[in-house]
């Protein structure tokens, strides 16, 4: 366990934030992954990850240690993604963005499948899941990703999203229903 991890676990988590380097090493992959899943654009996810750590660093004195630095970082990340998507939507409607590239194209499957036919079926099914996830609202998407990709408990998700447990459950319920409906079609 690294020093930052130890700091994350204890009540004196604020000390963990002082060590920006250790915190980055421990959390940058997770923050980037969540942001990439939310915004679907690798370049934007990179910039937002930087913004996230910078924001955490600049406002570290306001961190009261009521939650873990990881939860706090992910909360900043989700808020940044929300703002980014809102701005992007605005830009789209204003017609300011031309020829925007769609980086959310799903990559190749990670694990090779036994047969080409099977691989194709799996890929098609995952494409459907991915498309369904993309169509979710930012709140539902964030809850879904934190639950299934980051495997976080609902309580922790509530902390990240700054929502009540009931609201998190509702978002998850709607996300799962929507995905099941779209994948089943």
């Amino acid at each position, binding site marked *: 366990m690294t020093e930052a991890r130890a700091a994350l676990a204890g009540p004196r988590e604020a000390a963990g934030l002082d060590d*920006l*380097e250790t915190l*980055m*090493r421990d959390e*940058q*992959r997770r923050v*980037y*992954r969540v942001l*990439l*899943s939310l915004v679907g654009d690798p370049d934007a*996810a*990179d910039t937002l*990850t*930087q913004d996230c*750590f*910078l924001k955490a*660093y*600049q406002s570290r004195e306001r961190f009261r240690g009521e939650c873990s630095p990881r939860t706090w970082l992910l909360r900043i990340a989700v808020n940044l993604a929300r703002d980014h998507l809102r701005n992007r939507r605005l830009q789209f409607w204003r017609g300011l963005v031309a020829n925007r590239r769609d980086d959310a194209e*799903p*990559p190749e*499957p*990670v*694990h090779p499948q036994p047969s080409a036919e099977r691989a194709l079926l*799996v890929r098609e*099914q*995952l494409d459907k*899941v*991915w498309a369904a*996830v993309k169509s979710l609202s930012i709140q539902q998407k964030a809850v879904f*990703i934190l*639950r*299934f*990709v980051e*495997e976080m*408990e*609902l309580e922790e998700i509530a902390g990240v999203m700054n929502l009540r447990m009931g609201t998190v*459950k509702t978002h*998850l*319920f709607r996300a*799962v*229903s929507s995905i*099941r409906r779209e*994948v089943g079609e």
Partner: protein
Amino acid sequence: MSEMNEKHLDETSWAELSSGSVEAGTKRHLAECGPCRDEVARWQNEMQQAAVRMRAQAERDEMFWARQRATIRARAARSLRTMWLRYASTALAALLLVAVLLFSQTPKPKPATGDAVSDEALLEQVESDLNRDAPQALLAAALTSEQE
């Protein structure tokens, strides 16, 4: 097939399964109902695959992470410099403002001491004029008539 099996998992049960807090009724149903069990297994498998895919999509080489950390460090240092610069310029502006306020309050010119003396002189003059028999304008004529 029992009565339980006739009613398959509803959306609420799926939400339970997704949140990880499965109620006893749902567990019982899954134990008895093969199609639902298969459906849940298929769903869980799909979600696992989707998660693996999403994680894989975010995989980058060590160079990427090192470059990202270096950029964050540089931006943090720059923001620190900017912050100090902002503090310094604010302090300087405040000092300048105080200085301007202080120097703009120019003292009122003191009345010249000569005026006070002339007031007294004027008073004495008035007093001597009052005591005089003839007004000052006719003083020469009075002197002439006295000589005659």
